[in-house]
């Protein structure tokens, strides 16, 4: 056997995720968005539901998610993805429908749409990227920004007297009767990535079980917005973000 024979793609252990397109990602190196995209693409591929899945992209750094995962996509107005997804799922009940939203999108401007999609128990999956900041618009405070955390709109750190408290919206969503699965994951280490992937799969599977809405929060990093190296951002996330947003299932029925 020659070296060339061994080097055939099928013999290589690691391959490019099939459903990720060839487009060069616009995400900053080290950003959590890229990893989460890859996991979602892998799950869709492994479940064999590429042609059955419709994604709803947010306004935020992930607005271009539709450039990267090879499925049908809609791009929703800021915060409105759950309403958009509700209609798609109601009109095409046999399809898998998911939203992909940042913390500003889901927990600030889109709070009403999020809560009411969950309250209707719409059979969709909501993937919620909580990086504690508005990445896309240049690092302003998000509803999830930690107390004391500096952003361009909280230059001396978030102060609850002025800005309120970091919103634990997943805990709120878990209280709603319409949700069947609410979990908090991260993608900072390999074991966490494996767990996060399982959660994504479960959320997709729930879409066809008519059990209600599934929410997977990813406690994430925005190394650019946080002004840190990717490695430092991960360490900071582990130390600070997960203290306020503890990882694990909040609701699983």
């Amino acid at each position, binding site marked *: 056997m020659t070296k060339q024979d061994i080097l055939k793609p099928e013999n290589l252990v690691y391959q490019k995720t099939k459903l990720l397109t060839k487009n060069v990602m616009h995400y900053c190196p080290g950003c959590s968005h890229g990893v989460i995209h890859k996991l979602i693409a892998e799950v869709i591929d492994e479940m064999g539901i590429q042609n059955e899945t419709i994604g709803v992209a947010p306004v935020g750094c992930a607005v271009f998610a539709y450039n990267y995962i090879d499925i049908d996509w809609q791009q929703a107005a800021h915060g409105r993805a759950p*309403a958009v997804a509700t*209609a798609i799922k109601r009109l095409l009940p046999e399809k898998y429908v998911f939203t992909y939203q940042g913390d500003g999108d889901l927990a600030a401007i889109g709070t009403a749409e999020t809560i009411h999609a969950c309250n209707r128990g719409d059979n969709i999956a909501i993937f919620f990227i909580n990086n504690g900041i508005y990445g896309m618009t240049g690092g302003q405070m998000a509803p999830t920004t930690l107390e004391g955390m500096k952003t361009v709109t909280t230059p001396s750190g978030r102060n609850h007297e002025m800005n309120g408290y970091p919103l634990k919206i997943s805990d709120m969503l878990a209280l709603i009767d319409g949700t069947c699965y609410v979990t908090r994951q991260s993608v900072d280490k390999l074991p966490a990535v494996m767990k996060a992937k399982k959660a994504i799969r479960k959320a997709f599977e729930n879409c066809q079980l008519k059990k209600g809405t599934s929410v997977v929060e990813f406690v994430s990093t925005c190394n650019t917005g946080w002004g840190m190296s990717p490695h430092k951002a991960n360490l900071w996330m582990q130390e600070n973000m997960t203290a306020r947003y503890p990882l694990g299932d909040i609701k699983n029925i």
Partner: protein
Amino acid sequence: MEEIKLMKGNEAIAHAAIRCGTDGYFGYPITPQSEVMETLMDEAPWNTTGMVVLQAESEVAAINMVYGGAACGKKVMTSSSSPGMSLKQEGVSYIAGAELPCLLVNVMRGGPGLGTIQPSQADYFQTVKGGGHGDYRLITLAPSTVQEMADFVDLGFELAFRYNNPAMILADGIVGQMMEKVVLPPFKPRRTNDEVRKQCPWGTMGKTDDRERNIITSLALEADVMEATNNRLQAKYRIIEEKEVLFEEQNCEDADYVFVAFGSAARLCGNAMDALREQGFKVGLLRPITLWPFPTKRIAELAQKAKGFMSVELSAGQMVEDVRLAVNGKVPVTFHGRMGGNIPSAEEIIEKFKENFNLK
């Protein structure tokens, strides 16, 4: 056999929606249009045609549900009244920008602000001049009878799907609330998913192996790409302006003076015109049925012979600006309007007419 029924304009919209094969309705209650969703809920079309009817948590959610459904190629609609329509404008702009077909209904009430639940036509500017952000146009139909409320549902969808553009039924509260005889349109089955895919190959109904993924978006960060999108939209709008103008005219051929009015104001002007003719004044009436595209050409033609125009509106004077643009200074263009939910009587219109044109 024709089915003649007696019903409110809002109810006619609901029945027509079911009958013309609408796939989904998404709305939020507001007077004076709540009967649209109430009638739909009462009819429960999900049991018969399979139509989805959903009460959303807000107008913002409702219009974004319309976006989601329209982006699948489905026939979807929403209805509201003025304050609710204001709330929907961001979504309407996205729908226009993404070139999606859908039907919007605004049963106008008096504003600004919370205003009044009484009828008005003061959302003309909002509807035909933009409303939301960016350079876009809504195909706008203005019914003046309950029959037209019913007929314009199918017509609105037809136009929306022909041009992949939102269409609006802009009704005033009177047309929404009044009861009249109506012949409901015949039943048309909802399209099957295969038919939807065929009619709307751009729709996001799930990828198929024989095509690339479909993406519905209104986003293009590069100026050249966004300008090209705008140029495409503008070219489409020019075609619509060329081909889709609808209006109705009475006694315009020999008219010295022409009333221009839409919706229920046109009915009032019709009465005023009849009385004025009896008094020996050669008065005609031009009723735009499409407010955009506007019957600019026809008004310009009439301006060659007429001595004057008078726009009558339930507003401070909005459409009159388009009449002036069409007449282009040839002859005087005058106006009479009432606001806040008040309606001018035929006598009042006659008096203002004589005053405006110095006639005895």
